[in-house]
């Protein structure tokens, strides 16, 4: 695997394994994840990013995901 394929793979697994649980109380919010740890749930991407930096620091990437059952579909025309 190249580095791009493995980047944030653990964090994605954490998100997938908790998605159903988080959907019950945090649907539509943003969660910041590093490894199997979260920095909490937030109303905006910006808040989640700031909280992620405060919790995890800037030395390693962390994942920010919107808590939805299905991934939003984005378009570029």
């Amino acid at each position, binding site marked *: 695997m190249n580095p791009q394929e493995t980047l944030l793979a653990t964090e994605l697994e954490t998100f997938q394994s908790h998605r159903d649980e988080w959907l019950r109380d945090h649907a539509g919010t943003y969660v910041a994840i590093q490894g199997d740890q979260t920095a909490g749930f937030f109303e905006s991407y910006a808040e989640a990013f700031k909280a992620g930096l405060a919790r995890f620091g*800037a030395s390693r*990437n962390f994942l920010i995901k919107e808590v939805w059952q299905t991934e939003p579909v*984005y378009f*570029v025309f």
Partner: protein
Amino acid sequence: MGQAKVRWDPLNRENPFACIDVIVVNSDVYIDQQGELGFEFRKPVKMKAMLDTGASFTVISRTWARNCSLFQTGPDTKRKVLGGAVSCGEHAGSISFPGTTLKLYDPVKLVSADFVEPNFSGLIGIDLIRRWRITFDGESKLVTIED
């Protein structure tokens, strides 16, 4: 209220795009933390981005994202685009509009993708456009943006 004026000639065959100058760098909160650790960042570079009401998010070229060393908050995933799908990463950064009084957005989510367009290096998507009031005067070929 901030304002920008952008020249747009949709009938110009070589460059029929409405583009605005932008500067993308890492978010201030990230730079502050890295600065404390002794990291140095490249000087910001001004690039062109096209106003694109058909893009649901703001996109910058992957090369540009790498040059800025943008902090990545989402792995490369396939996104639908006209004619197929491209691999896009997600980053946290800051976007400002030099030469205008439009406010900067920091931090904001930026998507990176491969670009083959010579006239611009990014797309300003609906995530930012929805915060603006945009009018186009066809006679003077001027787009006015207000926030």
